[in-house]
C-alpha cells in the first residue's frame, strides 16, 4: 500500500481498457442488431412480382399482391388520358413531373391500393357519370371508409380526408412485362 501509485499509467490503462470494452460491446451488438433485418426468406417473399399486361384491356384494372399490399394496375383509356390533365385544378398535388399516368409508361398506371388517409382499400370507379360523392365524376378511386376521392392516376382531390396522392410502388416495364418491386 505504501508503494507509489503511478496515476498517469492508471489513467492511460483506464482509457485503453474502456475503449477495448466499448469495442467489445459494439462488436457484440452488430450481429444481434443485424439479425433483425429482413431475412432471406422475407426478401424472397418480398421479391419483385411480374405481370404480363397483354391481356389487360383498356379501362380495366387488376389487383396484384406485392409485399402483402394490393397493387392496382390500370390500363388507361384514351379518354382518361385526355381527362386527367383537366383535373389538375381539382387535385391537391397535380404531380405533373410524374407524367399523366404517373408511371414509367404512358398508358398504364401502377398504384399501391392503400388509401393515404387510414389505409382502407379505395374502390375503382372508372365510369364517367354523376356520382353521389361527385356530380362531375370523370372516373377514379373512391374510398368507402371516409369518402376520399382520387382520380384515375391516384391523385387526391381537394377537400377530402386523405392528405396525399396514392403511392406509386417501384416498378419497370419491359415490353408487355411489368415488374413491381424493381426500378428498371
Amino acid at each position, binding site marked *: 500500500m505504501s508503494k507509489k501509485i503511478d496515476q498517469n499509467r492508471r489513467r492511460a490503462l483506464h482509457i485503453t*481498457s474502456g475503449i477495448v470494452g466499448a469495442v467489445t460491446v459494439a462488436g457484440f451488438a*452488430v*450481429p*444481434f442488431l*443485424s*439479425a433483425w*433485418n429482413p*431475412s*432471406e*426468406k422475407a426478401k424472397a417473399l418480398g421479391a419483385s412480382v411480374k405481370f404480363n399486361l397483354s391481356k389487360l384491356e383498356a379501362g380495366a384494372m387488376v389487383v396484384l399482391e406485392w409485399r402483402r399490399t394490393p397493387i392496382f394496375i390500370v390500363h388507361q383509356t384514351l379518354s382518361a388520358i385526355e381527362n386527367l390533365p383537366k383535373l389538375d385544378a381539382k387535385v391537391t398535388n397535380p404531380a405533373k413531373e410524374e407524367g399523366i399516368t404517373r408511371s414509367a409508361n404512358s398508358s398504364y398506371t401502377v398504384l399501391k391500393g392503400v388509401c393515404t388517409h387510414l389505409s382502407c382499400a379505395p374502390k375503382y370507379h372508372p365510369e364517367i357519370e354523376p356520382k353521389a360523392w361527385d356530380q362531375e365524376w370523370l372516373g377514379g378511386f373512391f374510398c368507402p371508409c371516409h369518402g376520399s376521392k382520387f382520380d384515375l392516376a391516384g391523385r387526391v382531390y381537394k377537400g377530402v380526408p386523405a392528405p396525399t396522392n396514392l403511392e406509386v410502388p417501384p416498378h419497370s416495364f419491359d415490353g408487355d412485362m411489368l415488374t413491381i418491386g424493381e426500378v428498371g
Partner: protein
Amino acid sequence: MNKQNNSFMSWLDKRFPVTENLERHLTKHPVPKKVNFFYIFGALLMVIFMVQVITGIWLMMFYTNTEEGAFASVEYIMRDVEYGWLMRYMHSTGASAFFFLMYFHMFRGLLYGSYQKPKELVWLFGCFLLFLLMAEGFLGYVLPWGQMSYWAANVILSLFGAIPVIGPDLQVWIQGDYVLSGATLSRFFALHVVVVPLLMIALVVFHIFALHEVGAGNPEGVDIEKHRDEKGMPLDGAPFHPYKTFSALPAIGIFFVIFFSIVFFAPEGGGYFLEKPNFEEANFLKTPEHIAPVWYYAPFYSILRAITFGIPLLGITSKFLGFIIFAASIAILFVVPWLDRSKVQSIRYKGMYSKIGMILFAASFITLGYLGTKPVNELRTLIAQICTLFYFLPLILMPIYTKYEKTLEVPERL
C-alpha cells in the same frame, strides 16, 4: 456534477438501497487476496450464462416450436437470418462451455472444501443449479428435432417409464402423447426458454447472496475474517472492485479466445458439441446406429448403462436400478457438506485418504465420460462398473476417512 450525483444517490438510497447493495455485493465486498486459477470459474459461469440467455432470446425469435417446422427453422437460422449461424453456434458451444466451467467450478468446491460449514447452502444452491443446467441442456437438445434430439430424448423419457407402477403413465403425461411428438416439443420449448432459466436466475441470486453472507473461500482454507485491520477490512482480503473484477477481465479474454476459436473453427466440436445424426431430421422409424449423449452427460449416461443387473428379489429391474443409481450419482453431490467430517477445508491440509479419494473420484468421472460417448462392449461395461464404484466410494466413505485421517496444521494467514 459529483454533488448533484450524490444528492440524487441519497434521494434514491432513502427509497431503494442501491449504494448499500452495490457496496455489499460488488464494490466493497472483501475477497481473499490470494486464490488460484480454480477460483475464476464462478465469474466465467456468469459470463456464459449471459451469453446463453442473450443468444437464446435471439434464437427464440426465429425458431419454430412445432414438429413440422422445428428442424427447418434451425436451417433457416443457419442460412437465412443475418448472423443466425453465429447465434446458433454461440448457443451450442455455450452449452458445452457452461458444463465444462460448471464441472471445474464444482471440482474446485470439492478440492478446497467450499461446501463446509457455514457454506452448506452455497453448495446446495450450486448443486440445484447443476441439476437445472442438466435439465436445461436436455430440454434444449430436443428442440432442433434432429435424429439425436429425438432418440436421446426417447431414451431418457423411457427411464421415467421404468419407475414401477406409475412409470408408464408418468411417461405418457410428460410426453403429452403416447410417443415423443410435437406435443412434447412444444412443452419442452416452454420449459427450456422460460421455466428453467427463471429458476436458474433465482438460484444464481441465492447462490451469490449466500456466498456473500459467508464469504468467499481460498485454496488454503484460511478464514480471512479472523484478522482485520482497524477499518474492519480483513488483512488477507481486498475489495471485490477493482481487485477481483479486474483480475477476472483477462480471464474472460482468454475464455473468449478459446470460445470463439471453437465457434468459428470447430463449431461441431469434432461431433461432440453438435452430433452428426442431429443434422438429419427426426425420423421415428429409423434409430441411429449409435446413440451417444452429448459429452457433458456422458459420465452419468455411462453410470446408467453400467447397471446391467437388477435386484430380482425386490422386483427391481436392471433398467429401474440403473435409473436409481443414475439419480443417486447426482443426488449424492447434494449431501457432500454432511459427509465431510474433516477439521480442515482444503485438500492441501487433508490427509492421504482424502487425496486418493479425490483422484479416484475425478479419474472415474473422466473415464465414465469417455466411455459414455462410445458404443458398449463387455470390457467397457466392466470398466464402467468399476468406475461407477469408484465414483461413489470416495463420497460414501468420506464420513469415515475424513474423521480419522491425520490432517496438517492450517496457517493463520494466507
